[in-house]
């Protein structure tokens, strides 16, 4: 199985089997999976909302989830077959992002965006004081999840 390391502010979707690893602090990753086509995609965003300044990158929750869905649809997925899992959003003291309650707001944004898109959430591990390392298997839609002590403030 091919492996992929997902960096913050990026996203990944593939119709072949991939093992995608990412490390989350206050960031949130949304994993989308089409159970019919067995295609999976994942994003990793740092802030909840794009405020219209700078580039509209998947660094922002609202952009990241919509772009991920778009990528899945381009790969031939149907929206009605897609389900979501949400991870991350811990209360990590992060030198990169100084805003208050960023983890909680990231989680909220994932839930709101998915509700708007009518995508059901079938699994989640969010909040808390710890970081997370997740490995997403794009073909099965399964996620292997470990709590970690964050040592770097990159996400």
């Amino acid at each position, binding site marked *: 199985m091919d492996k992929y*390391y997902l*960096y913050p502010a990026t996203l990944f979707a593939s119709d072949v089997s991939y093992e995608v690893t990412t490390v989350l602090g206050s960031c949130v990753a949304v994993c989308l999976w089409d159970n019919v086509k067995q295609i999976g995609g994942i994003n990793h965003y740092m802030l909840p909302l794009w405020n219209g300044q700078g*580039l509209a990158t998947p660094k922002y929750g609202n952009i*990241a989830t919509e772009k991920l869905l778009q990528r899945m649809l381009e790969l031939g997925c149907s929206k009605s077959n897609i389900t979501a899992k949400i991870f991350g959003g811990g209360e990590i003291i992060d030198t990169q992002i100084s805003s208050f309650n960023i983890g909680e707001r990231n989680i909220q944004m994932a839930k709101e965006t998915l509700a708007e898109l009518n995508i059901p959430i079938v699994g989640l591990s969010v909040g808390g004081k710890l970081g997370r390392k997740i490995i997403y298997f794009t073909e099965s839609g399964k996620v292997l999840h470990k709590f*970690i002590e964050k040592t*770097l403030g990159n996400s």
Partner: protein
Amino acid sequence: MINDSTLISELERRFNDNKKVIAELEELTEQLKAVNKKLEESESLKSYFISNIRNEIINPFTSILNLSKQISSMSDIEKAKKSADLIYGEAFFLDFQLKNIFAAAELEAGETYPQIYSVNVVSTVQNLLDSYQSSIASKKLDIVISSSVANDFTFKSDPGKLTLIYSNLLNNAILFSKEGGKIEITLSFEYESMVFTIKDFGIGIEQDKVKLIFDRFKRLDNTINTLSSGYGLGLSVTKAITDMLNGTISVESEVGNGATFTVMIPDVHMDIEATGTAIDENGMLF
């Protein structure tokens, strides 16, 4: 049995509730109006952006086409050389703009990520200056480099992205310098980060506009009639790439006194996948 006073107080309560609802509604309408206005603004900025991009691509292309057509019928070799220089300048600029446009598209698609190698920063900057030699010479600019790092110093980062950051800042510094002006570049390695500053002595940026310059569709002065985007797409690309490399970018400026940009890019000194240690033996499956 309801007496008059209970009835009146109940009616009053309902009226008050109603008032509250109306007040809330008014507030929401105001918010909606504000969002609407922002949307309209961004629409008009977008079309400005598209026409800007079109100018930035089509104008240089037209020059290149015309100049190269002329060259083929020139007998004077010196004249032909001049035209070739002009073609080079236009093509160089076009190449630079296209790099920014593609970088912006890749960043927005979430498809680009850091590719970490050892970077020799002194030679990176030197190569960059060499590639800008003709525009530096044509504006008779004096470039002063002071470096506190050794010539063979390397640190771990993404060389391609770093080059794009530096070239955008250099491009702006050249663009906004007056003829015969000076550009100062300093290089140092502090707190595990590569620090690059570039100072020009050009027109500068107004204080209240300094924070807008990394904005995607903003160019501070729409009336500047040059082929260049100036503080346009390039700086928002620069900012987004700097973020991706976990760096910071800041600017200090005074109108008429030029601008100083400072970029700090941290050394990637450990395997990014090992940024945490597992605290439980067994993972959970979701």
